[in-house]
């Protein structure tokens, strides 16, 4: 029972979704399912929040290394939730909404939640993202070395595209005769970049995508036929 019902649910729901794709009266079911997923995931998020708290509370009570940082995490977590749910500093925006104290948008500029987003959340997240610029450089330095044919192709294309991407591409037209009056200037490397992009990049992606589609079909069938139930756990 503990195992059969979930598998049946997965199979039946899955097959309904497939059939719905071909049957106009059932088509909305696919949209509804996505809608429902959002709701299930949101409720599950509360479980995630609870787990986060337990995880850090345990660290604090065990006095594990760095438990002070767990306190910071918990504090910022609860402050954010309190500020956001109570809509601290958010005010109603129109006359008719005045009598509803909680009607202001929760992300209103100037509200507490907005402040947290603007000055805590956003700077950290975008700086994390910006660190990638450094990692791109170190990965390129380390990985793009001519060890074999594959690596040579990898690094040569990378070099060509890197030059072709900025205005430095003009260097490649230095050896060409000057363009005819009125015609667009011609940069061989820019054309080469465009050619690589239109042919090899597109083709590589297409082939990967064709493969992925077949992989998805097989994986889906494994779930629908109940062949793979690892996500449902073991027998108890």
């Amino acid at each position, binding site marked *: 029972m503990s195992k059969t019902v979930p598998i049946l649910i997965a199979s039946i729901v899955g097959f309904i979704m497939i059939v719905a794709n071909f049957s106009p009266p059932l088509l909305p079911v696919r949209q509804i399912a996505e809608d429902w997923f959002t709701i299930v995931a949101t409720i599950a998020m509360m479980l995630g929040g609870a787990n986060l708290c337990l995880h850090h509370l345990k660290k604090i009570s065990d006095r594990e290394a760095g438990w002070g940082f767990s306190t910071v995490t918990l504090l910022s977590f609860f402050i954010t939730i309190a500020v956001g749910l109570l809509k601290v500093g958010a005010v109603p925006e129109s006359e008719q909404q005045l009598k509803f104290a909680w009607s202001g948008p929760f992300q209103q500029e100037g509200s507490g939640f907005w402040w947290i987003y603007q000055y805590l959340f956003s700077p*950290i997240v975008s700086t994390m993202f910006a660190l990638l610029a450094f990692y791109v450089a170190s990965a390129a330095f380390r990985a793009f070395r001519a060890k074999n044919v594959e690596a040579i192709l990898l690094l040569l294309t990378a070099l060509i595209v890197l030059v072709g991407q900025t205005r430095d591409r003009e260097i490649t037209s230095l050896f060409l005769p000057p363009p005819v009056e009125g015609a667009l200037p011609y940069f061989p490397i820019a054309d080469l970049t465009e050619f690589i992009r239109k042919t090899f990049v597109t083709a590589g992606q297409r082939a990967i995508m064709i493969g992925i589609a077949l992989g998805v079909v*097989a994986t889906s069938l494994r779930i629908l036929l109940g062949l793979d139930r690892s996500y449902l756990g073991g027998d108890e």
Partner: protein
Amino acid sequence: MDFHSDTNAKKEIITTRVKSGGQSAFESLVFVGKRPWDCRERVRFTKKTLAMLLFLVVFPALSLADESAGSTKQRVWFDTGKTSFALLTIAICATVIICTELARRGKPFYVRPIAGLLAMEEAVGRATEMGKPILFVPGIEDIKEIDTVAGLMVLSSVAKMAAEYDTPLEVPTSRALVMTAAREAVQAAALAAGRPDYYNEDRIHYITDEQFGYVASVCGWMYREKPAACFFLGKFFAESLFLAEAGNAVGAIQIAGTAETTQLPFFVAACDYTLLGEELFAASAYLSGEPAQMGMLKGQDFGKLAAIVLLLFGCSLATWDSISPRGKSEEGQNLPRRSQWITDTVLKGG
């Protein structure tokens, strides 16, 4: 009660694979399947099950169908515009299922070795030798992405190896539902490995839904704990390079896999092994060693064969069109191109 049980066959294959090890294991792979009627066990419906199913699935689906159909005059149950796509779907699914059945009945299939998958056991072994933990990241998307599901399926195989070696496996997740599923998977793997006490709920925990908040935490953990093996299998976006570079800095063996084509270059550049696209989906079938699942890989190959044939045929027709166009009909209209039959009828899409 088990929906299908070929555990014996599975065990045998796993032992052959482990014993002979490496590439030869795959070459010497001969499936010991069971006949289909042995595999299938009847599913018993209790009244409660039926009632729940009715409540959960059938009733809402029907009522929705009713609602939307009420407005139109005539109810059309099949969209004839999608006939060719329906046939194609059925054909591909049928091929995959037939291959599964054949594999179950004991037909041996050759499966080529995939370096990244062979390295998984080695990576787990290395972590054990070094006495360091293993990191598994099942992507940063929710379980509604099939990549995540594929990642979780591989997780159960990796967890089983880790449980056999008794090496700690850390699974931080970025979604609560993924955490629940990962816990189920690891718990089941620990049971299957015969070490139920290996499962430690605290090692599989939710961090945050935010992409870079999650990465900040995982990379911080990597720097402090210095895992010896890192697995990144699932759906990844910009953080792929971040994770891979952090793993590289601590000297871990890294095995990555994603179906997100934009992120593959970064994994290829920064990881030791990368499962490219489809290989991620094949990974769990490979690692399970079950004949039925391996048969699916053969089925997928027939799909690829179909793609190649369609392409060759379509391109020849298109070239023919280009060299000698069909001209005009009696009414003076341009006749449709010959390749149109392939692009607009066979490959019409849904």
